[in-house]
């Protein structure tokens, strides 16, 4: 396996422009001869499918939900970054680039990140033209807010529903192209395999989730836009259906998986309340703009009404430890600080397991300063959501928050053109690894998904198709039929086990999640990771002998869907632990407890670990093989991150 990043060289400001000029073009008349498969219809998938169809390609798009509009991008609340500098506060493409590389703790590619910052500007233009109702000032111009990890206001937002509005924009563009007959949309379809032959992706195998029909679809290129794998932790802010299956099955067909241990734990989620908990709900990080995080100084005050505690009894620990950034430090730093407070017995809220897992996020000062109406305007829907879930009114009493799995920076390895190690298979959005390094800054996920879908794949896909031409393997070929048979057999095997099995698939998922939070979560160490690497194969074995599935494969069957996805999560978890163990340094969200600076922060080892770890699958029971792509920094000076 060769890792060739194809990153352009030279002046960083000109790299993307020069690269675009070097890319081959497909002439308009020929575009309509090419078929492209897009899996997933979140921001990356919907924008890619719409854009490619507008260019003239024939697109087949797939989603597991009942409508492309429901993909989990819809749940992003806070906003989207763009280097517009509308606020005249010193922002620039270079600054967004710099902040993103630094925020990612110097584990991303400079070329990719610079391109992301450049196209961020066009994303806002595109979205506004589609009718995305971003927040505005009274003069009619766009409003901005600041966000974690940045000292400028560059975040565009639509109340607390920015992801929803951006997705509806991309979905409307997709709907237009479906109506134009250029996109064939397959709802309630799940990708279960990638068809590869002679080093080229030829198509995919899907299951119709309603009828159970297994079918092959072939195309000249495949774009995976299947999102992240945060649900490996069971309790996460992801939607229940989010899964790694598309990425994982492609990995098993030869796509390298990069930096799987880079998983982001979001600092502002509503703490878990009990055993039946099925997911955790995120409260937008934008709340940290106006909310102040604190815990009681004395553990004896943990159960008291927070309003009864005077200022001198409170520890505003983020403001104390990080005076420059205060409550706006990057996510990983805020998460670990919260965990440290709770581990030290200073947490608040109900006791879950053995300790109180929560810290206060207090709006009393902001309400006093700006008035309830202004706070309601900014965060009304978030406050409502909090009250609905917890029964507490955040206008009256501080919120309780705790970190939860939220986003995965790791993903399938791609080159500068977003192509994986399988030629013809491209990976966009959260599903790839490329832009966020070891930690993603707030409001950058929406930016990356749309950058990849609207403004990158449209150029790079053409280059590939112009060079490689048509794929001659059709859906009725022997190869495709064999791929369908294999998937059918795998499902039949799973059902056969499932009919005798006695453990609900969710039970395996919960056990996996607890194990991963414990050993490969906010803090990791060699000993714990080694233990996890012993426990996961046992869990996997137990799963494959005792998972329970009721019903058949030829109907809507939620247990079968879950079991298939959990099987892949178990395998991924093992790879995550290998990666976390191998990366014997701390960086960004990957916090190895053995490598801590004196001030308690992550201690990077640039000499030995300034590389992308890309893992090759070597068979179901083989050890994964590590390939390294070295990271070089010409523009951003490697430094220890400091937000103090």
């Amino acid at each position: 396996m060769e890792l060739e990043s194809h990153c352009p060289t030279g002046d960083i400001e000109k790299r993307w422009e020069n690269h675009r000029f070097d890319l081959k073009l497909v002439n308009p008349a020929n575009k309509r001869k090419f078929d492209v498969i897009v899996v997933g219809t979140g921001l990356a998938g919907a924008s890619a499918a719409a854009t490619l169809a507008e260019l003239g390609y024939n697109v087949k798009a797939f989603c597991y939900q009942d409508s492309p509009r429901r993909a989990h991008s819809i749940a992003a609340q806070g906003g989207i970054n763009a280097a517009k500098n509308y606020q005249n506060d010193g922002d620039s493409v270079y600054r967004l680039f710099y902040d993103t590389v630094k925020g990612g703790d110097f584990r991303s590619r400079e070329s990719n990140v610079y391109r992301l910052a450049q196209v961020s500007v066009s994303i806002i233009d595109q979205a506004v033209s589609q009718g995305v109702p971003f927040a505005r000032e009274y003069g009619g111009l766009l409003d901005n807010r600041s966000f974690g990890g940045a000292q400028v206001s560059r975040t565009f937002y639509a109340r607390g529903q920015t992801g929803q509005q951006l997705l509806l924009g991309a979905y409307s563009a997709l709907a237009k192209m479906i109506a134009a007959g250029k996109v064939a949309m397959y709802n309630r379809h799940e990708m279960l395999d990638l068809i590869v032959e002679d080093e080229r992706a030829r198509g995919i195998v899907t299951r119709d989730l309603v009828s159970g029909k297994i079918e092959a679809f072939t195309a000249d290129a495949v774009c995976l836009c299947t999102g992240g794998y945060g649900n490996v932790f069971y309790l996460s802010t992801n939607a229940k259906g989010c899964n790694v299956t598309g990425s994982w099955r492609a990995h098993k067909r030869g796509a390298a998986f990069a930096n799987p241990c880079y998983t982001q734990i979001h600092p502002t989620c509503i703490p878990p309340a009990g055993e039946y908990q099925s997911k955790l709900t995120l409260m937008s990080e934008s709340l940290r703009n106006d909310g102040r995080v604190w815990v009681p100084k004395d553990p004896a005050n943990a159960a008291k009404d927070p309003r009864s505690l005077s200022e001198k009894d409170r520890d505003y620990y983020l403001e104390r430890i990080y005076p420059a950034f205060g409550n706006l430090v990057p996510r990983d730093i805020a998460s670990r600080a919260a965990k440290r407070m709770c581990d030290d017995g200073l947490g608040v809220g109900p006791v879950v397991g053995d300790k109180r897992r929560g810290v206060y996020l207090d709006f009393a000062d902001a309400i006093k300063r700006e008035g309830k109406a202004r706070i309601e305007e900014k965060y009304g829907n978030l406050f409502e959501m909090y009250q609905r879930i917890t029964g507490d009114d955040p206008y009256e009493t501080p919120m309780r928050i705790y970190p939860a799995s939220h986003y995965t920076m790791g993903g399938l390895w791609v080159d500068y053109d977003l192509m994986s190690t399988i030629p013809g298979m491209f990976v966009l959005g959260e599903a790839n690894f490329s832009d966020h390094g070891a930690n993603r800054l707030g409001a950058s996920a929406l930016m990356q998904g749309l950058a990849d879908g609207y403004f990158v794949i449209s150029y790079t896909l053409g280059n590939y198709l112009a060079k490689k031409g048509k794929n001659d393997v059709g859906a009725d070929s022997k190869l495709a039929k064999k791929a369908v048979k294999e998937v059918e057999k795998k499902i039949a095997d799973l059902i056969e086990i499932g009919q005798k099995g006695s453990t609900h698939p969710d039970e395996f998922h919960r056990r996996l999640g607890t194990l991963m939070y414990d050993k490969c979560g906010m803090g990791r160490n060699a000993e714990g990771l080694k233990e996890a690497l012993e426990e996961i194969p046992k869990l996997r074995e137990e799963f494959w002998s005792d998972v329970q599935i009721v019903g058949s494969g030829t109907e809507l069957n939620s247990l079968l869907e879950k079991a298939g996805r959990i099987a892949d999560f178990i395998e991924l978890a093992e790879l995550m632990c290998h990666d976390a163990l191998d990366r014997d340094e701390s960086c960004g969200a990957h916090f190895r407890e053995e490598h801590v600076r004196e001030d308690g922060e992550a201690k990077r080892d640039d000499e030995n670990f300034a590389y992308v770890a890309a893992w090759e699958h070597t068979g179901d029971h083989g050890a994964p093989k590590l390939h390294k792509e070295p990271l070089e920094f010409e523009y951003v000076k490697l430094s220890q991150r400091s937000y103090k």
Partner: protein
Amino acid sequence: MSETIDLKLHVWRQSGPKDKGAFADYSKHAKGISTHASFLEMLDVVNERLVAEGEAPIAFDHDCREGICGMCGAVINGVPHGHRKQTTTCQLHMREFQNNAEVYVEPFRAGSFPIIQDLVVDRSSFDTIIQAGGYVSVRTGSAPDANEIPIPKQISDRAMDAAQCIGCGACVAACPNASASLFLSAKLAHLNLLPQGQPERYRRTRQMVLAHDQAGFGGCTNHRECEAACPKGISTDFIARMNRDVLVASLTDKDGELI
């Protein structure tokens, strides 16, 4: 308030579109439900108990479980998404129910939402309506600078009020005519209010209203049950606004010129 409650739970079971379907009594599976659990987490618990007995779990649509994706939805004691105002099924919590409460759960019912299984219905007719014109025809890359067209804040806010529709279909399930007018009018208002939506305003209105009617949804006769059931509190004012646009559309030709 006690920490757990028992429910007298009745859930609609229907194996497929052609099956007649009936309520099944799951009271014995719905005991000891935590009041902090969400309604869907209650169904999860019931399902785990059903599966442990070798029975097929109740099929229901759900995804984000935070009230934004619009995938979940059931009629709970006769009310789409249950009795709590402006709350999706996934955000309804069991603290809203009394101990030993009688709870009936059934799918969103409308001719244009065929039942797939149990509580799962096919809402693809909503996608069809959007495909008829719920977009601004702007190609990727051709957009002017985002601040080139100032939009008065109150107009932008009003568009946002409409745009936050999650497309769940509760408005249809609540309407005695099974009309999707609230959904349709919200989509129209979002784009028709904004300057970007003006060039296609009347064409969009004509085409989307036609698609709505062709999908078999009924007409609006001002019961306003939709507004009461809408988890996002979308106002029926948008229906009035739509009717004005329909009137103007009927007076203009294809090019938007007054006849």
